[in-house]
């Protein structure tokens, strides 16, 4: 019976063939390790965010006079409202963790190299959209950090020559961040995740056109080196999801405010800035890069903004910077060392971004701004050095296996 129904459908819309070729029998490298589960984890996060967000939106009110209270109403009065909100707020954090690991995985194993450039580019577009979405979401509870985070970030636009000031007023819909800003941010915060969903589909389309990279970074023999996606990868992804949920739930249920700022439980006050504004942790490295450019006089502001955007945009040209004949850093000793310096550098930048701008260490002997500038140089240095050691054959890659 069900077979004949499926036949009827397949004759009109070839669902079974699609599932077979793109899911169950889709060939995957047989040597994928656990770093390859973060893609499906990110997709899982997106679904969690869409679902919890949708239900939060049914109680939320995007009104500057009500937003703060209505989030507390969700927390205290709405049945399981606290759970929805904590899942959503911590979900953003875990989404970024998975996406960062996912990106670093790609950087380590050379997944951005030909023929995966377009796949890589759509990944970066998703990352940009994700940052925009999270930024606007964080404005919605309308606490002090929401408000001043929004003020600082929107003000970045005023660095644009000539039209900057006008542009910021246009984005605000007023002369400061206010009710019109909150409203439009809510509308966009609702919309963008669905746009992300669309781009994820393109990302997967690009993936399935060129197939997965693998830890050895070599081109595979379709018959010898691959295994079907189901059940081998599905079971691995599911196991990873279990581990992921364990950690995620530990945060949601036991330390839900770990990543939230106490100041955001103070209602937004346009007349007073908190003593120390910190963005959410996932923006800290970029925030540190923004602040580290402060030595160019009146040009500093624009330069800081450019540096911050460039820090992500540079990922777009990474496929062309890396000229090595070998993809995976497994066989590239020098690149591997640079990579780990880069990772440590990102953590350091995050730490600098977390501290106040004029903080110092060792009794004032080490201003953090100096650390920030150094780390910024190292951040960009990674990309330049990677190009130098590969374009001029300075790195001698180790022999790569012919097949798995």
């Amino acid at each position, binding site marked *: 019976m069900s077979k004949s129904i499926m036949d009827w459908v397949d004759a009109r819309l070839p669902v079974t063939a699609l599932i077979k070729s793109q899911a169950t029998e889709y060939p995957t490298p047989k040597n994928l390790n656990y770093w390859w589960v973060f893609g499906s984890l990110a997709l899982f996060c997106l679904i969690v965010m869409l679902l919890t967000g949708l239900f939060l939106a049914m109680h939320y009110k995007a009104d500057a006079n009500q937003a703060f209270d209505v989030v507390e109403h969700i927390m205290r009065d709405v049945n399981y409202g606290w759970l929805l909100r904590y899942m959503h707020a911590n979900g953003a954090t875990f989404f970024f963790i998975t996406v960062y690991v996912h990106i670093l995985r790609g950087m380590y194993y050379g997944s951005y190299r030909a023929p995966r450039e377009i796949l890589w580019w759509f990944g970066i577009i998703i990352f940009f959209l994700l940052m925009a979405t999270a930024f606007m979401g964080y404005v919605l509870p309308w606490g002090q950090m929401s408000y001043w985070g929004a003020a600082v970030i*929107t003000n970045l636009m005023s660095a644009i020559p000539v039209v900057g000031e006008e542009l910021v007023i246009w984005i605000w819909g007023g002369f400061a961040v206010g009710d019109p800003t909150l409203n439009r941010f809510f509308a966009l915060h609702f919309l963008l995740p669905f746009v992300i969903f669309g781009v994820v589909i393109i990302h997967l389309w690009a993936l399935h056109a060129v197939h997965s990279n693998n830890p050895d970074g070599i081109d595979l023999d379709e018959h010898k080196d691959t295994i079907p996606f189901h059940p081998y990868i599905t079971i691995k992804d599911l196991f990873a999801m279990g581990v992921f949920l364990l950690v995620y739930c530990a945060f949601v249920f036991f330390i839900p405010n770990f990543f939230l700022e106490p100041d955001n439980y103070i209602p937004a006050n346009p007349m007073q800035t*908190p003593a120390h504004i910190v963005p959410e942790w996932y923006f800290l490295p970029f925030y540190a890069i923004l602040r580290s450019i402060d030595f160019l006089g009146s040009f500093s502001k624009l330069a800081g903004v450019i540096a911050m955007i460039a820090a992500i945009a540079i990922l777009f040209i990474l496929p062309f910077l890396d000229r090595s004949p070998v993809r995976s850093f497994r066989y590239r000793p020098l690149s591997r060392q640079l990579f780990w310096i880069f990772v440590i550098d990102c953590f350091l930048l995050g730490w600098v971004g977390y501290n106040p701008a004029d903080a110092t260490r060792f009794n004032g002997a080490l201003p953090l701004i100096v650390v920030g500038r150094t780390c910024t140089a190292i951040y960009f240095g990674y990309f330049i050095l990677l190009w130098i050691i590969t374009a001029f054959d300075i790195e001698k890659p180790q022999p790569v296996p012919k097949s798995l």
Partner: protein
Amino acid sequence: MSASAHSTAHSHSPVPEQPEEESRRDFLILATGAVSAVGVAGAAWPFIRSWSPSADVLSQATTEVDISALGKGQMITVPWQGKPVFILHRTDEQIASAKKGDAEKLPDPAKDAERAQKPEYLVLLAICTHLGCVPQPIGTGNFGGFLCPCHGSHYDTSGRIRQGPAPKNLEVPFYAFKDDKTLVIGKSVG
């Protein structure tokens, strides 16, 4: 056979186009494209403009402040168009310090006399020209003035930028003394 010969003659091999016809087609494509582009831009405009400040927001143009109770050395923060404005009744030292700043090498040169209509009163838009935080009150910065806590910009007792990432001096909003006691911030529009 003759039938097929007949049909070939009719349906095959497009006649090579006259250069004249080709340029006419190019022109039509271009003209249609141009008109559509204008149409799309025209249709987009209302959507774009809907984000600009609405009439009710624009109407909050002025704020009147009673400054009679503001003693020497005191400062108040008043909202104007949703933005904070500092009104500082400066002490003699603060005025002197501001005048002394006139002679320094300033990132954004301006004389104190151009910034304060009456030397006793300093009126400032309390929005850091770096990224828009509200600086802390008078006396918190390195030059006796205002410190912006966000990224460490120091403004002097005339609200001029002296140190840190901010590119410009704190803006002096348009203001006028209606009488000795009343300050009007802003200009009414429309």
